[in-house]
């Protein structure tokens, strides 16, 4: 996907999600929280599909790992982060719908794991590892 397509995708789904959250919080609609989070499920499904296809593409015979794409370790981390985000949203919806008696600190564990991972990745970009010459 080109940058414009990715920007448009994130814009449209964020806008729809925000509108649905506002309608629900203001009591204008009585929809299920799982339905409110529909844009999140769609974006996560697209992300997982894209990552799995790209990771599977590396297993093809004749694949050149030096073609500039991120390595398998990075792609695995992206997939883990997406699954953690999905896990957080699912447990949050279950809590909001009172399907499970969960403490918010339990619900937030996948989110915190994802954020700590993202912080480590950002930190490695800010302070790159010094290599011996």
């Amino acid at each position: 996907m080109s940058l414009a397509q990715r920007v448009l995708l994130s814009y449209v789904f964020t806008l729809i999600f925000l509108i649905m959250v506002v309608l629900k919080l203001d009591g204008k609609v009585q929809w299920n929280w799982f339905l409110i989070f529909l844009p999140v499920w769609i974006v996560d499904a697209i992300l997982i599909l894209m990552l799995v296809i790209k990771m599977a593409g590396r297993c093809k015979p004749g694949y050149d790992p030096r073609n500039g794409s991120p390595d398998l370790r990075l792609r695995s981390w992206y997939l883990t982060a997406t699954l953690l985000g999905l896990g957080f949203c699912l447990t949050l919806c279950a809590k909001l719908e009172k399907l499970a008696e969960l403490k918010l600190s339990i619900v937030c564990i996948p989110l915190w794991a994802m954020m700590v991972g993202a912080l480590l990745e950002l930190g490695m970009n800010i302070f790159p590892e010094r290599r011996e010459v």
Partner: protein
Amino acid sequence: MLFSLRELVQWLGFATFELFLHLLALLVFTMLVALRADMLTPALSWWLVFVPLFAADGLSTYFTAIVSIRLYQENEKRLAVLRLLWVLTVLSLKLVCEVLLCQKLAEQEQARDLWYGLILSPLFILLQLLMIRACRVN
């Protein structure tokens, strides 16, 4: 994931360090929210819970001011002014949203007229601005 770090820095107009700062503040904020919701500690007011987000906004403004001054001194006047204006706009919209949300949560009874559509309106404006900026970057 959907965007590389380079694309995000270009699009959002924030340095990597600032993104790190805001993410760290969000992490601490979510921890405080969970603590407040689970422990029901009355000593932890909503204004206290929002302190990490306010601090990140303040530090980000300071960082941007320093960068803009340096750019100005290096004769990159146009870039300095544009960067300062963009970051201040984004941070002020974010701050307005945070303050309104905090007021709504802290004063449930008095802030009954403050509906969530109004509270999140700065985010809707921010989304439009980001879309316009994305066209420029692209």
